[in-house]
């Protein structure tokens, strides 16, 4: 049955083709702004993607190598019968090859150690609290089943005071600015995920976790929950808006505050309509 080796070869070729095609398609590649397939908008994103690509290259090379050996040997050493229905070639028995075993254990081991050491700097700059930027938190984000409640300090500049701005599933910040938020959960585990910024952090009930990031591009992106948190998990999708300038952001905040402080209808009712 030589056909099997052909099937294996096709599967391997299709996989490699998928990887080779991916960078040329915005849908297949990593989440980046529409029309800028290869532009990662955050500093951490660029580091994470570099790590991702290194791993992709290493595993890709190993994959190609092992697939070539697999297809070649299943083609070459296929069991053939002679006209009497007897195998043409006698099976050989061996106890393995110690040297080979050591080699193919040490090489992947070394790669793993290399990756483990190589990524430490990135991990530390994204997760270690000591690396958090020394700026005032922009907002406090509390996950609950099933939404993100986002609280910005109001005019008094302090969080958790009566003038706070509270919005749901609508997160705004400013481009080219280190942004710090505090992440909380009011019920179960959730995970705050900003795919375009490659930021993912679990929200743990009882903990206040600082999360920081930046972006070099303004635009509209999304938040997702990356921890299955209950039946409505999929509903925890939110909007992220990155403003061009601080002034734009402040204008948004003050518009929202005006709405939040509304005590009379100014226009005749119904003006919001279709």
């Amino acid at each position: 049955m030589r056909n099997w080796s052909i099937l294996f070869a096709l599967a391997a070729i299709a996989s490699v083709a998928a990887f080779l095609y991916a960078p040329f398609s915005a849908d297949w590649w990593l989440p980046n702004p529409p029309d800028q397939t290869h532009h990662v908008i955050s500093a951490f994103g660029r580091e994470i993607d570099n790590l991702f690509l290194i791993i992709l290259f290493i595993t890709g090379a190993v994959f190609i190598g092992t697939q070539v050996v697999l297809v070649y040997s299943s083609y070459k050493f296929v069991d053939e019968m002679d006209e009497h229905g007897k195998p043409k070639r006698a099976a050989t028995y061996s106890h393995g090859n110690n040297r080979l075993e050591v080699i193919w254990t040490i090489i992947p081991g070394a790669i793993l150690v290399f990756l483990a050491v190589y990524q430490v700097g990135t991990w530390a700059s994204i997760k270690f609290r000591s690396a958090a930027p020394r700026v005032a938190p922009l907002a406090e984000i509390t996950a609950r089943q099933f939404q993100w409640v986002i609280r910005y300090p109001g005019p008094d500049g302090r969080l958790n005071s009566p003038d706070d701005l509270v919005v749901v599933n609508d997160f705004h910040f400013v481009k080219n600015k280190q942004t710090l938020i505090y992440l909380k959960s009011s019920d179960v585990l959730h995970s705050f995920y900003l795919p375009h910024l490659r930021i993912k952090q679990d929200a743990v009930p009882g903990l206040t976790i600082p999360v920081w990031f930046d972006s070099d591009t303004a635009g509209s992106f999304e938040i997702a929950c990356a921890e299955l948190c209950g039946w409505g998990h999929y509903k925890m999708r939110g909007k992220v808006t990155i403003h061009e300038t601080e002034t734009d952001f402040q204008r948004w905040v003050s518009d929202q505050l005006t709405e939040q402080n509304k005590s009379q209808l100014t226009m005749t009712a119904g003006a919001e309509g279709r």
Partner: protein
Amino acid sequence: MTRSRFVAGLILGGLVLTSSGCSDTFNAGPLEYVSAVTLTQDVPGKTNLAGKQPLQDKVRAALAGLFGDSPQRIRVPEGSGLPGGGIYLASYKLEGDGANARRKRIYRPRADGTPDPSRPQAGGYAIYRRNCLHCHGVSGAGDGPTAPYLFPIPRDFRQGLFKFTSTPNGARPHRDDLRRTIKNGLHGTSMPAFHALLSADEIEQVIDYVIFLSMRGETELMLIEEAGTADENDPDALEEEVVKELADGVFNKWKTAQEQVMNPSIARTPATRESILRGRDLFLGRTKEKLECAGCHGMLAQGDGASFVSKEVFDSIVFGGNPSERAARLSALDEKTRTLWTQKLDVWGNPLRPANLNRGDYKGGRRPIDIYWRIAKGINGAQMPAHDSTINERQIWDLVNFVLALPYEPELLTEAGNEPQRAKLADTATAR
């Protein structure tokens, strides 16, 4: 050879699965409206048509004639007042009569007004089915498959009553009220905020559909009321004229409500210490108006007032075991508590708790005007009464200021006898 057939089957199966499961145009099988309980069952104290088959049939026929017989064959009665005559309710229009009616696809218009075949309209029903049906149910009865797992349970739209409105007590909501609920959700309940999940246009379409279900449901109740007064064998019961009149009555309630939004004639009083303390005294019933807020919400506003059953009893009934055995848990209560329990249900017959005002979560929104509406005109169907006849607008604003300050200054009630000390307040605010 069986093996290669197996492989081929596997590949084919995979193809079929991937190509069928992902399509957005996938349409569920036939869906049916559930009918009101009083149509077929004997409900003590309510007009019902139990056992009166001919009248039941008449109600069903009248309802199908007005609104279509299933969500996949929607009709919109004339005079409904829905935008575009109901054109945004579905992805199709029914053309023709009765069983011969055909569905005709609706396309969104190009800039010049002609239909654009590349942009089919989703319609309120499709958006509702995807986003709301699993909670609010096919008929808007609040009985979707997710509903039994939620507290509070989703709204039943069929009485035309909505809680968080800007219109007078008991009136239909304004369209803006529904839009606010759908965009922002109801905080502290499982009703989600949809403004990040749906486009503005989709939200308008789904509002239309909610109103449609509500009108349909209320018309059904009116038809049952009307048929309840008729003789079972009267061939003239529920004539076309009568049906039309009843439906118009329902539509008119929606139309008039659009003109009745309550707009405070004076702006909010600045939230000064004096105003907040005046609000507190009103809340505690210390003024001559003797307001009952604390009787329901509790002396510490924790939602544990004396006029409702205690929190322990409430929790043991609602959360203390299998929801389907709630009746058994209820019957184990003593007579007095049970009576109180029955009196303190909401109009939909669901258990209800006064809000804990220390949490700073407001279902109907945190804007001063939202809280104003809650206090001035009450919360429809939820026991909380209108206060605009007992106190003036200034007093309502004092209450609003008190309510909005309380979550940050629980001392307002814990030390209700004495003037809270400012220094201490500042301390706790920074510590938090």
